[in-house]
């Protein structure tokens, strides 16, 4: 009987401790789409943009190292980097400004942030408007599909 009581007391304390820890643990989630992006402050946006560029470059470098310089993975990485990497092309200020511009259309707020960056880079590189609009429409559909199961509990 004593053991059962002791076990119950310990379980109660453990539960309370875990709950308290969950409340006090700091947690910041990276933005997934425009709606979450717009909730950030400008300082957060700027630092996020800088970290995004650096992380992207690090990942591409890792592909080069792991797969070898002449492998298909490396060529894919180079090709992808040319399209979607912001490192060396844009400063953090420019990336934040571009995303602010892109998400100033409320219909774009469902678009995932990675797609938004790609579209913005294509826009900045002078891609024709028809292609850009097609990409935006597709990205909106994808974003709505992603947001659909997330929004329904």
């Amino acid at each position, binding site marked *: 009987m004593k053991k059962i009581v002791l076990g119950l007391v310990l379980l109660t304390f453990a539960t309370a401790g875990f709950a308290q820890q969950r409340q006090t643990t700091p947690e910041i989630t990276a933005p997934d789409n425009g709606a979450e992006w717009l909730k950030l*402050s*400008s*300082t957060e*946006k700027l630092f996020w943009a*800088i970290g995004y560029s650096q992380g992207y470059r690090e990942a591409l470098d890792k592909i080069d190292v792991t797969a070898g310089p002449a492998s298909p993975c490396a060529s894919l990485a180079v090709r992808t980097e040319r399209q979607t990497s912001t490192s060396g092309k*844009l400063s953090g*200020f420019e990336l934040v*400004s571009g995303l*602010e511009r892109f998400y*100033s259309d409320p219909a774009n707020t469902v678009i995932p942030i990675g797609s938004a960056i790609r579209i913005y880079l294509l826009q900045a590189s002078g891609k024709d408007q028809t292609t850009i609009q097609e990409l935006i429409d597709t990205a909106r559909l994808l974003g709505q599909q992603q947001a659909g199961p997330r929004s329904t509990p």
Partner: protein
Amino acid sequence: MRKSTLIVALITVAGLTTISVIGQEEALPAVTPRQIVLAEPTVFLAAEPIRELHAPSLVDAARRNDYASFDALYREAKRRGEQVGQFDTLHELWTWSYNDPIGAFYGSDMHARFAHAYPGYTAYIEDYRIVDSHGNTFYPTSETRTFLLDRIVEGNAPRVLIAGQSPSEEAPAPVVRPAHTPATHARTATRRHAASSAPKPAATTAVRTTRTAPAKVETPVTKAPAASAPEPDAIASAPVASSASPNTTASVPAPAPAPVTPVPVAATPAPAPVFKDVAQEAKPEESGAASRGLLLLVIGIIGIGLLAVMLRTPRESGPVSILTPQQPEKPAPVEPLRKAPVEPQEGEKKTRATGSHG
């Protein structure tokens, strides 16, 4: 027996008749024919809420971060001649931000203008400023838009001239110096735009947050209003909302009407560029006076030199110093005549050629 039965039957019939007569005393309700009114059919669906359709407002569009709608509504309202002057600053800031490559941030110059026009702006934006690795301070446009929108809702939205405006608004800025030639004016406008728009930061990743260097920004902020104080025309702010609060230092009692064009005419751009212009405009006169003075100085020096040459006395041949009496000069030593050098013999030549003495 039969008699009694008859009596009972009579009593029963009489009782029933009485009861029915009493029941008939109360009048039956009047029966009125049912009237079917053929009104316009209205269908109410209880499951679907009835939404009132209302036209989107500028404030709603700004709150929803919808630039396209905001811009369209603003232009439409302007075209109709509605009173939307309180949105001028917000619209200009947002348009500039939309068109500038780094429009999400702006520099100290624009910050000084906002600080001059809005009393609580400096304290508000202090927490959001960003200092880059070159020491340049930047302020976010997004938070500034929120601030401006709140002031508009409050009814306290003075006009602030934003950089990068349309040329029609920026061209008439002759308050400081009316005698602008077109070339100099174009140059000034370009310089003003470059100065007021945020200086483009280098593509560097090192950025410091705001609280690390508080003194760096305060210098231009405090300097600009003080410098522009003696020249009220250079202040580009005027109250637009009729219910402007009295504590706005830059407010002029004239209610800014829908035609906003006079406001930029009366208003000159930011104080800092204006003073820069003044300094540069005053430069030719100063340089002319300086060059004239320099010329006079050179002429004077030349004249003094010539005078000194003319009045110069011939040098005395006497001793230069008393302490060191001049020694009589010795005659130059004459080289004694010597024999002509004899040509060496063959053997001696060979010996010499070897370089040894024996």
